[in-house]
């Protein structure tokens, strides 16, 4: 049985050179690429997410860990093409209509992607119609929406209502976040979850999938 602790630690430290070296070592030991992704890289990123949520880590720690993971995936990708690596779930994510802030959404995307979710990023200033179209097209498990200014928060409720009108509301879980967004607001608009940060988003989305 392969010991992935050194690989996980390299990801947590955000050391891309060590991460790549560790991936090469475990490949030489005969580890399966899919297992390396899940037990090595993703496990490391989940720890990064926890440390971010607890306040121990900061954004640069997350960025370096993501970079280390991406560099490792460049080596593994050709080997993964035929192995059909399983993703935990599919997430469509975007910032709501009128909001062009992307940093929060991008951070959450990195966290969730690192933790094993397939991410379809619609970008910023996404209208309700585009969110609905994306849910129809991609059948995600989770729709993630962020609003970083109060002026654009109504876009969250508008999208949830648009999903209801389109008969899609029951097919997808809606998770929201952003600086002015609170649990109270999430409850009022009928969202299924509210995440305070990228690390919390991992836990929240994993719980949703497990339900």
């Amino acid at each position: 049985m392969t010991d992935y602790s050194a690989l996980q630690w390299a990801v947590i430290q955000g050391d891309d050179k060590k991460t790549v070296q560790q991936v090469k070592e475990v490949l030489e030991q005969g580890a399966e690429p899919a297992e390396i992704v899940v037990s090595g890289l993703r496990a490391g990123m989940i720890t990064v997410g926890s440390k971010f949520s607890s306040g121990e880590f900061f954004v640069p720690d997350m960025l370096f860990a993501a970079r280390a993971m991406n560099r490792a995936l460049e080596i593994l990708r050709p080997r993964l093409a035929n192995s059909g690596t399983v993703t935990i779930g599919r997430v469509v994510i975007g910032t709501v209509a009128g909001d062009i802030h992307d940093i929060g959404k991008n951070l959450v995307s990195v966290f969730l992607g690192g933790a094993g979710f397939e991410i379809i990023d619609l970008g910023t200033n996404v209208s309700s119609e585009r969110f609905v179209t994306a849910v129809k097209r991609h059948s995600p498990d989770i729709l993630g929406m962020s609003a970083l200014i109060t002026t654009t928060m109504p876009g969250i409720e508008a999208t949830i209502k648009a999903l209801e009108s389109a008969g899609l509301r029951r097919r997808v879980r809606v998770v929201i976040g952003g600086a002015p967004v609170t649990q109270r607001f999430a409850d009022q608009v009928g969202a299924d979850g509210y995440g305070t940060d990228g690390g919390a988003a991992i836990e929240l989305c994993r719980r949703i999938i497990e339900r």
Partner: protein
Amino acid sequence: MAMTHKARILAAARKRAVDKLPFGARIDVWYNYHSGHNTLAKKYEDWNMVDILRDQSAGAQVRHLCIWKIEYDDLEVVIKEDPPFKTTKWRTPVGNVSMKTVFTPQEGPWIAYEVDLPFKSSKDYPVIEYILEHTRIVPDLSEYYQKEKMVGEDGMVMTGMGMYSPMQQIMRYWLGYEKFFYELHDNPAQVEWLYELEKELAKKKLEILAESPVEMPVLCSNWSDEFHTPVFAKYFAPWLKEASDYLHSKGKLTQVHADGEMKRLIPFFLETGVDVAEAWSPAPMTSVTTAELRKAWGDKVTIWGGIPAIMFEPQYSDEEFDAYILNLFKEVAPGYNFIVGMGDNLPFDGKIERVGRVAELIDKYGSIPMPV
């Protein structure tokens, strides 16, 4: 004679006695949004923002980004407007860089947001260095004087260094957060050279502020502990201390617009020498209460804020709003070194009457010293 709003705000900033809690309210998001959509209440149609605040018995905060403008030598700046986008291209002898921003006057904040930043790769360092080396900071106070005249003694015109401190300018304006952290790790010497160039320009801005009538310049804005803590001790605190010491020597106060998550930045703030933390946005918008902040800073820093923007929204009842304000008064009692305000604005769907309600509650319960 009763103190004016401005006198009260400045006295609290100077840690001097006041008669009651100062109140400096910021409503430009609400005002700009409703002006842009023609949805101001009939009573307030054709009113300016300061007159509306006067009607609500609140002191005014009027924003004015800076009292200087930028001019360049030996390079060409080409601006292409494609509303709501604007592309700025700097053409220099060593290469070109460009930046794209978006600005929608129908949205409240009236700030241009960056959608594409100048730095794309390390090939752009020489170009940005050239731009900074050929930048001149020129005083430009005419619009500031107009706003001062409009506000008078009923509040303050908030102006200063622009949005960012020198390293923040690199983080936000030139590189963007993601590239900044990678570059600071991979190419620290080049990032630090840009920092030195920005500090030289910052000195010019500080000199203009020192000679100006601005009583309390804003040194920088928009902190958030998950981004800034790792670089604060090395790149923010020393510059803020230097800037504060310089402006203090010229008889000025200093403030920062501290509206983000501050939890892990709280201990560092005391190293900055800054007098006022404005736009303080407590829980539930961030994780820290006003009581916790007061305990951490004691009487060393005047806090301006305390009412999270969302409290003004209809999602909270009038009773909940009153309860929040009265609890705030308890948290800051006896009330010294505190200026009531929004963290950081009246939202577009906020109730303007609640601004007046704050003023009423201050009149009723906010005489200093408030019972502890």
